[in-house]
């Protein structure tokens, strides 16, 4: 598929990237690995005046141990992060979700920052312009209806990052830089709850670093998908446990992941979390699998992930 016209600029540092953003009056998209952005632009779901390439920014490419955190630059590729010894030893849940993300070739191109900030997806949204025009535009395309759920007031597109779920389970936070300055926030706070515009990032903001508290954990990631490779999650469950307490994060259903804490882990506490998540999950008919099946699997995968985390992740 042929790309629409846009200009290309490469930024050597964050200040330069933000300057480009301002010089185009915000009509730009930031490019890292491009595995999410380029398909969106090809489908005319995003039509920027210019693309700002962030791959030349050296400080976004490093993984370092600072104080009590592992600090990961947003442009570190998924493959590099997966093969990092510290990730393997300290954060098994993240190692697993990285391994289950897409396929090896795309892991070598896709970045952790881009993976976190990927667009939300829907069976009736990620389609060509002609296809979408024939059906009529939905909320997320600027229309006034949802094509999946008649008379709905909201957008039910799914957030499909595997690794954000693991990072939330690990209580990670993110650093953002934008025209208004720098800030740090908990990863789970970047979600707006609205599928049309799923993130609370301010215009022009760039995700620069991810900070993961440096503490050895047990963990597991369970992913529901049709094929064993390439697919986005139709449901993802991340569990991370430290000292008999932990966090469970459920994603792939709706635009915001669900987060639960686990305390005094025993059979009752984790069936309770599974029940709670089952009741809160609201899948709709916008993926390759039925909503009823995905809802049932929430409870199954949570219990499976917790059991596996307790057994394996020593």
């Amino acid at each position, binding site marked *: 598929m042929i790309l*629409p016209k*846009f*200009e*290309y600029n490469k930024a050597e540092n964050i200040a330069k990237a933000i300057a480009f953003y301002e010089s185009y009056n915000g009509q730009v998209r930031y490019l890292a690995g491009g595995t999410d952005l380029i398909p969106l632009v090809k489908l005319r779901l995003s039509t920027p005046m210019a*693309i700002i390439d962030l791959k030349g920014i050296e400080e976004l490419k490093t993984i370092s141990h600072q104080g009590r955190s592992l600090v990961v630059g947003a442009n570190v590729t998924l493959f590099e992060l997966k093969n990092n010894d510290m990730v393997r030893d300290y954060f098994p849940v993240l190692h697993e979700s990285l391994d289950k993300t897409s396929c*090896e*070739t795309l892991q070598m191109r896709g970045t952790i920052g881009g993976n976190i900030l990927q667009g939300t997806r829907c069976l009736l949204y990620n389609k060509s312009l002609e296809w979408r025009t024939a059906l009529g535009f939905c909320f997320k395309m600027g229309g006034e209806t949802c094509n999946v759920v008649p008379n709905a007031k909201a957008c039910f597109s799914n957030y499909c990052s595997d690794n954000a779920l693991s990072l939330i389970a690990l209580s990670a936070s993110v650093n953002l830089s934008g025209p208004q300055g720098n800030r740090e926030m908990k990863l789970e706070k970047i979600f707006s709850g609205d599928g049309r515009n799923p993130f609370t990032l301010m215009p022009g903001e760039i995700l620069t670093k991810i900070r993961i508290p440096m503490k050895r954990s047990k963990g597991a990631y369970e992913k529901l998908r049709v094929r064993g*490779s*390439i697919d986005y999650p139709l449901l993802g469950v991340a569990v991370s446990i430290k000292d008999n307490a932990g966090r469970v994060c459920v994603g792939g259903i709706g635009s915001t992941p669900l987060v639960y804490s686990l305390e005094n882990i025993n059979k009752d506490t984790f069936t309770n979390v599974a029940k709670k998540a089952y009741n809160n999950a609201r899948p709709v008919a916008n993926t390759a699998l039925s909503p009823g099946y995905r809802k049932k699997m929430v409870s199954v995968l949570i219990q499976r992930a917790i059991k596996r985390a307790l057994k394996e992740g020593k």
Partner: protein
Amino acid sequence: MKTTKVTFHVNDEKVTVQARPYETLLETLRERFDLTGVKEGCGMGACGACTVVMNGIPLRSCLVLTPEVNGASITTIEGLRKDGKLHPLQEAFMEKGAVQCGFCTSGMILTAKALLDRKKRPTKKDIIKTISSNICRCTGYKKIIEAVEEAGKKKA
């Protein structure tokens, strides 16, 4: 529209193009250099038919803008033959009958080449995992896996 001067290596040859900013590497390789061994399948990064090797790693050329590859070194299927001799992977694919329609073959071979270059003795599990990046709709995966194993043995 402003074009960008991009200099890179294709199959060990230094080239310079004035690329459109919205031109993909796939288009550049096929249309400017006639390297039609690079195939366009889905055009969305899902199928792997357009895979080339960039600086030792496999890359979906349909997802990459040509200005992004400035300074890089690209290998396509056409560049695997050295001194009139085919690459061991190409030989193994023929020997094992790992080619049916042939559309996925160049992507498969280049993905496998990157694996053999970074891992001395890949296990069958490693090969399956790597090859699962690419789609073969004739579903000849078994033969492809056998061919990569064979080439891996010969190389080691």
